[in-house]
């Protein structure tokens, strides 16, 4: 059991962790999610003291490991860590990467270490790569070996720090299935991840972090399907949206188109609708708003709701209002005219926010 009490980590300019308290019970599989830069990795790295917390306590099986004089190396032997960038030792073979820590730190014999290493290599399906060097392997293979290296130390808990974010999409699956396999053995784990689907399926607890704090905590069902708090709701929703700020006329629409393409592939949205969204966006922004005086100031979001199967383009912008019905673009007009299209186009009077215009185009799919 690991008890974290009032953990704070401060740097000169930022405070990535603010007064975090949480208890990790034996057998827990905890997924830590949340926007970038909200202290998820810092929390993980504080637990095994790769980062020294500024204040607070971490109590592992009744022992305060933040206390001075605590033998951290002994504590760390009980905590495995899997890194985003694998961090296999480059000068050692795969086999030695798994063997050497056992020999040096656990005092196992070479034969014992070898047997253990080969057993684990077999488990992660890389028995044949034992005598290769890490740089001869793919990212997915390296990460599987890094996991084997961690397992070889028989840790009580394994900390995964974004184990799949440095991987090519085609390799994410192989690593995730290994982690799932470990989770089934009942080992305590804590995983920082951006793969929501994976987090949902593997964990029994989810910590949503925001602003250096655990903002909301719950079961995967609670967090992913019924988030209670505002930021969690927005985050879960934003997983299915793309947002942009268009603040000058050099805005890279090509890059936006590429991202939209990937987004559509991920969510299985058919090309027809995404290309319509693209046409609408370029017609409104490039052909019209860009024609007004002054620098453009547009907030654009593309949203897809899986439940209702509606793809929405929402634009908020400052300055002169553009009435989309006045467009002379035939293609654009026909999109607006379709029965599956819903349009909102309004001027927000007495706007206290930045933007005083609001336009939304929603595309429904109809067989």
């Amino acid at each position, binding site marked *: 059991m690991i008890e974290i009490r009032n953990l704070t980590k401060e740097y000169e300019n930022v405070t990535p962790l603010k007064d975090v308290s949480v208890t990790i019970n034996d057998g827990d599989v905890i997924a830590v999610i949340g926007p970038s830069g909200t202290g998820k990795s810092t929390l993980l790295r504080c637990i095994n003291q*790769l980062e020294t917390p500024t204040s607070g306590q971490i109590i592992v099986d009744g022992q305060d490991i933040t206390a001075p004089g605590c033998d951290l190396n002994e504590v760390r032997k009980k905590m495995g860590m899997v890194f985003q960038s694998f961090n296999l*030792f480059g000068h050692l073979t795969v086999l030695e990467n798994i063997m050497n820590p056992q020999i040096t730190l656990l005092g196992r014999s070479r034969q014992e270490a070898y047997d253990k290493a080969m057993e684990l290599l077999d488990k992660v399906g890389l028995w044949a790569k034992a005598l290769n060097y890490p740089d001869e392997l793919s990212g997915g293979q390296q990460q599987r070996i890094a996991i084997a*290296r961690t397992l070889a130390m028989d840790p009580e808990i394994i900390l995964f720090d974004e184990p799949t974010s440095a991987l090519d999409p085609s390799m994410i699956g192989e690593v995730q299935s290994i982690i799932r396999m470990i989770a089934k053995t009942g080992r305590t784990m804590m995983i920082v991840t951006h793969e929501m689907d994976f987090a949902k399926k593997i964990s029994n607890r989810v910590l949503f972090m925001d602003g250096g704090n655990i903002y909301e905590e719950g079961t995967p069902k609670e967090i992913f399907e019924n988030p209670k708090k505002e930021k969690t709701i927005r985050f879960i929703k934003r997983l299915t949206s793309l947002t942009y700020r268009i603040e000058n006329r050099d805005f890279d629409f090509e890059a936006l188109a590429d991202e939209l393409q990937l987004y559509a592939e991920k969510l299985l949205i058919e090309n027809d609708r995404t290309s319509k969204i693209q046409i609408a966006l370029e017609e409104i922004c490039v052909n019209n708003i860009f024609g007004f005086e002054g620098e453009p100031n547009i907030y654009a979001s593309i949203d897809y709701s899986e439940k209702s199967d509606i793809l929405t383009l929402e634009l908020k912008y400052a300055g002169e209002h553009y009435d989309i019905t006045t467009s002379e673009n035939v293609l654009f007009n026909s999109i607006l005219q379709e029965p599956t299209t819903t349009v909102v186009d309004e001027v927000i009077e007495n706007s206290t926010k930045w933007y005083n215009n609001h336009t939304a185009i929603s595309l429904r799919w109809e067989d």
Partner: protein
Amino acid sequence: MKNRINKIIVLILCLVMAFQAVAFADGETQEQEMIPKNGITTIDELHGKRLGVQTGTLYEQAIGWPKEETDKFEQYKMPNDMLLALESNKLDAYLIEEVGFYAQRYEHPELMRLKEKAGESQFAVIVGNNEKQDVLYAQMEEFIAEGKANGWLDGLYDYWVRNWNPNTCKIETIPETTGENGEVIIAIEGGYEPFSYESNGQFEGYDVEFMMNFCAKYGYTWNFQAMEFDAIAVGAIAGKYDFGMNIVVDEERAEDSVLTDWYYVCDLVFVVEGEYESEMGFFENMAYSFEKTFIRDNRWRLFAEGMGRTLLITVMSIILGTALGFAAYMACRHGNKVANGITGVINWLIEGIPTVVFLMILSFVIFGKTQLSGTLISIIGFSFIFGCGMYGMLKVGFGAIHKGQFEAATALGYSDTQSFFKILLPQAAQHFLPIYKSNVVSLIKETSVVGYIAVMDLTKMGDLVRSRTYLAFFALIAVAVLYFVMEAVLVAIVNQVQLRIDPKRRSKEKILEGIVEKE
């Protein structure tokens, strides 16, 4: 203290070059028969020509020409360099002391002097600026005065210079000394016949016999130290040496210097190239040069000895420098402010100071009053220089390793020391060893300046041989080849080390040592 030096400008030193076997009985007649190639026969014709002189001798000021003209003299480090410049037509004539000219002409009969003498120069002893100065100065003045009065100095000059014969001249009887008043250290050039040169492991020559007699008379034991000519006066002024020999007496020396009265006088002459046809063929000539450079007097031993010393300095500096750089890196790697501050300052100083200046500062300022040998000081100096390089290499080498390697080791439970030696060092070594190799090569080359602080290394030995033989070719080539050989050997050793410790070159058997493989 008497004769404190306020203005060092006053006195510049010189040494008289090696005087080699010259006693040409028919020298005068030969000159009259020879015709100068460029037709110059009088000093007046030399105005506006390209003229050379040895650095620091100030001979050009003795001609009585205006300063604008004497300023245009090209400065050469060694008389042999002027000779080469003359023969390759970079100079029209050069100015040298008479004795030096005869020594050169022994090997180069094509040389001829202008009959007019250009001036004369007096040579004195410089007395070291230390606590013994007053006593030694008074004793030396008395010794020279007596020697002049009773004709002993004249006799000594006749024997060594006027009747110089390289094959027979030697100190017949080494005078007995009681040694009751301790040791005096005497700075000599060590490679300039007939004043000071090495023969069969002993220093010989006019200066040597002169100083031995002085020591015997006043109850001192002598300790001769050979060094680059430029370093003699510097060392004496720093108080490191008690006496420095062969210092030119300048007109302005006046009251500020610590020079004694002159102990010999020598004419200065201009040398030009005459029409001369060698009787020797090319190969004959080469064989002769070779014999003179290596075989005669067992001169190859000088090369071997110099190479040994260069190797000693290099290898010791590599070992100590590596250890020093490593220690500095270990002290600094966790950002210790004091260690980083000290290392930073030392690095900054050593990187900013030219090697030869750094060595001279070590020798004459920092260790000025101690009796550490030049070799030891060189090793200290080059250890620091190599250590700085090592420190830089380690920084680069470890900097090139992704910080994840250290984090992964730490997370597994490796201690700081374990992760440093087991994880980081083997990887860093592969990054810095290639730079290490080139640093080794530069170090060997850099050690060639140790002659400035009285170390007889390979370069200095080559110079000594050249100054005795007056033949540049073989000595220079031999020195270059020997440097190449040393570099090749040291680089081969580092290469071997690099291969041995390259983790990726281990065999499967080595990796699986002591393991029963599973099927």
